[in-house]
Structure formats: C-alpha cells, structure tokens
C-alpha cells in the first residue's frame, strides 16, 4: 500500500539531499504553519519520519494536536531540478524514548554536533501527487478545459 502511495520519483526526491522538505500543519487555533524539515526521510516500513529538535516548536505542538484529533499534515518536496511533490500524511506515532529514539538521537548528534533531539515523528503517507507546474498545467487543461483564457486558444488572434 505505502509503496503505491509514494511513487519512485518521490522516493528519489526523498533520497536526494538537495531536495527541500516542508511540513505544513494546523494546530488547535486553526492557523496553518509551515516549517522546513530537512531531516524528513523514508523509513524502511514505507512511512516517513523526521527529527524534531525543539519540544515547544509550533510544528511539534501541531503534530501532537494532529495525532490526538486525527488530522492530516501536508508535506511538500522541491527537488534541485525544481520538481515538486506533495504528500498528505497522518501522524502515526512519536518516538520520545527507547532504543529506536536513541539510535536517531545518537545519529543526529554525530551529524550535527551538540544538538538535542526532542522527538522523531513517524508519518504515514495517505496520498501523494506531483506538483510541478508543467505537470499540473497539463492535468488542469485536460480536466478543466473550460477554465482557460481564450486569447491563448484562438488560431487567428496570435
């Protein structure tokens, strides 16, 4: 199931360290919040995960809100060659202690020096789609042919 939701292109984008990763969440006040989470990666079980370094960050609070009340989050990827992807995900669990958390904690500190790690969020992908402009424009024109400027379509007026 999961591998079908995340196609090969998205997996490639996630594997590319140059890909920009943004996580959009909503909290109890309904205000949307976007944060870049470069640690976002694919897990062996097909879910996504990222390292949360700040306990009281808005994203962390919003993810708690989301797991509590069954809300989804939105993840955007932008590759170095400007391909965009969007993943809708559901927070599945948060690791704050235990062997698995410790592995991430140790790895994060080896990579980034004296940082703290508050949590590792595991997010289950429930839908995904490509967001690159050219791809979306083609889809739009095919699905909604009536929503276009006429001057682009005439054969005489160019």
């Amino acid at each position: 199931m999961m591998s079908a939701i995340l196609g090969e292109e998205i997996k490639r984008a996630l594997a590319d360290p140059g890909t920009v990763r943004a996580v959009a969440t909503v909290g109890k006040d309904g205000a949307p919040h976007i944060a870049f989470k470069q640690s976002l990666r694919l897990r062996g079980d097909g879910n996504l995960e990222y390292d949360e370094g700040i306990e009281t960050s808005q994203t962390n609070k919003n993810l708690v809100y989301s797991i509590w009340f069954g809300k989804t989050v939105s993840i955007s990827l932008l590759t170095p060659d400007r391909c965009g992807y969007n993943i809708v995900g559901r927070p599945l669990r948060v690791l704050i202690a235990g062997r698995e958390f410790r592995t991430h904690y140790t790895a994060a500190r080896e990579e980034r020096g004296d940082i703290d790690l508050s949590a590792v969020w595991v997010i289950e992908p429930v839908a995904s789609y490509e967001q690159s402009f050219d791809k979306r424009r083609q889809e739009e024109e095919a699905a909604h042919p009536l929503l276009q400027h006429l001057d682009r379509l005439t054969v005489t007026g160019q």
Partner: protein
Amino acid sequence: MSNDRNWREKERSLSEVIRKYPDVSPFVIIKTDVQRRGVLYTEKALAAVDPDIHLTKLRSDYSNKEDLTPVSLTMRDGTSINVGDEGSGDAHSDRDPYQVDVVDGKIVLVDEGNVIEEVSYWEKPDYYEKVTSRGTPMWHVVSPRPQRLCIHPHQQCDFWKTPGYGCKFCTMSAVYHAGNKPELLNTQDIVETVAEALKEPGRNVNIFLTGGTLRGGKNFLDEELDCYIDILAGITRLFGGKRFPSQLISTAFSREQLRRLHDSTGLASYTADLEVLNKSLFEWICPGKAATIGYEEWKNRLYEAVEIFGRGNVDTGIVAGVELAQPNGFQTEEEALESTLSEADEISSHGVGVVGCVWKVHPGSVFRKQTSPSLEYYVRLARGLDQIRRKYNLSIDMDNYRRCGNHPDTDLSRI
C-alpha cells in the same frame, strides 16, 4: 473483578466521554481511564515481554516487584500510562481493569472485546543490571520512568509510625512492610547509580527525588532536608556544580530550609504535595501533615518556595478524586470539581502549579474500600487544571508529560 458489577451502568463510558469532550485529547482520556481502572495482561501480551529489553522489575517508594509483567505502558503520542508502580490488575478492584493483549501483531488495550488503542512497553535502562561498588544492585537504588530517574531515599514514612497519622490513600508503609526494602538508601549507592545512568544517551530528561517524611533533626524535617541535600550535592557535582533539570517532592520545608536546599544544591524545581485542596478534607485525609504543618502553612511554604525557586519551578500535587471519598468528602462530583478548581485557581495565582494524579484505590491503603470518581470527573478536572495554568501563564515544564507521566492535566499542556 470490580466491587460493583453494575458500575458501567452508573457512569459514562470511555467512548461517550471522548464524544462529550471533543476538545480533550482522546489519548489523555484513555490514559486516565487506564490509570483509574488498571490493566491485566493476557498470555499473548506477556509472551511479548522481553525482560532484556522491557522494564519488568521495579523497586521504588510504592513498588517492589520482580515478576515479568511490564512496569508500564506508552501510547503512540508519547503519553505514559503509569499502571505498574503500585501493582496492576487486582490492585484496582473498584472497577474492571482493561486488558493488554496482542491483536494483529500489535500490543493493544482492550475493553469488553474492543481494541481501544495501541501501546508499547516501557524499556529498561542500560544501568539496570549493574551493581554499585558496595555491591548493591542499581535497580534497587534508582527506579526509571521512560525519561526520568527516580530516587526514593526514605522508603517508609515517619507519619505511619504515629498511629492515625498516615495519609489515607497511601500505600507506602504497606509496600515497605510487605517486602525486603531497606528503610534508607545509601547516598554513595545513589550517586554512583545516577552517574552510571547518565551515560545512556538520549534517555533521561529529569532527576527526581521523593520519599517518606523524616521528622527528626534539630528543627522539624531537618533530617529529611539533610538527606536530600547530601544526595543532591553528590549529583550536582556530576553537572559541574550547575543547576540541572530536577525535581524534589518533599514534606513542605520552612523558608530557611528551602533557602538552604536551593543554595547548596543544583536542584531546579520543588514540589510539596497538598494531596487534597480543602482544609477540612486535608485534616481528615492527611492527618500527619495537618497536625505537624497544617493546610494554610503548607500553602504558605509553597508560596515561599516560589520566591526561592522562581515562578514555574514550584508545583503541588493532588491525589485527584480523594476529595470524593466518603463519608467526609464532597457528596457530588459537581461540588468537588467547583471547590477543587477554585482552590487550584487561588494557589496558582501565587505562581504554584497544581497537578493531579489519578487516584487508584489500593488494597494496602486506609481507603481500600472507597470508589474513585467517574472518568468524566477526571477529564473535567484535568481540563480545568490545564486551563488555570494557561490563565496565569504558568509553565509546567518541570512536571510535563515526559517527567512524571502521571498527570493527565500536564499532558493536555502539550498543545
């Protein structure tokens, strides 16, 4: 089995409470009910326990267990459910316990055949099977929660040594007399164990001390104070003499004692538990505390602690629900809620946080025949305590969900 076979007909069910309070985390509601009712493990759930990985044996102020049942549970959102400290299953006889079972390969909570939520078992820390240089097993000295090291230097309470003085919900003395625990732990053992435990990366976020009252010394409680200062001074050296994330719950010290505690150790936060927020109920339920310090003076000492430790670094714990114990407690949950929250508001206005534990009716306590309140009561109380702290902009970092894990109200403060 429950004391009252028909208890389910007399109160709203878990799912009804979750539906009625859509602004309260269902995870926290489930945790609260599991703490209230306790758990029993199925054979499959016990087969999923790996004693090399999971925490099974535990020696603490309220526990002395060596069986292979898990000490406790964690939920998917990181919430701890403290079911194990004081025993599980038949220790919670006022209502039927939840079952912990394995369904579709997952460890889950089950009630009346319905899967409620996935859980995992607490894991064992690295220091657990080691011994101190004196040959003491380290697990006898420091008890772990998922992210906290708990030290209980005095495993009995002096109030229980005076007939009629022990707190009526308390099982510390019963657990002490049932087992083979020493009354006082050795300071060197404690400091060595903490030093060893701190080597584990990414586990501990807090060092916590509490224990039974020690009444002796030149002034009342000096013996207790000296005991904690001795231990804390040793631990403070591990942090280069600096203040470190830590909490002490003690009998309410005087201003001079609090000053000495603060200035001679790296202790960061302080708690003295009022247990119940009502003067006459305090006198009935906590007679030793009432006779030696008194309700109003206890509160004054908490306010003085704020002057010394700072706002947001002092709180007081209540055994939520004992205010409804009979015959002297409130007659209705409505009355109990109004009175408790109004007193919590007054205390919080002085910069002291109020945190609630879920009262479990234990066989070893004077209150063993009582019945704890409805789940709905606990949910309303937790929500009220969280709202009061927000009203006064009072941080609860010192006692948040990662630390004790026994306070539904501080779980709610996560968002």
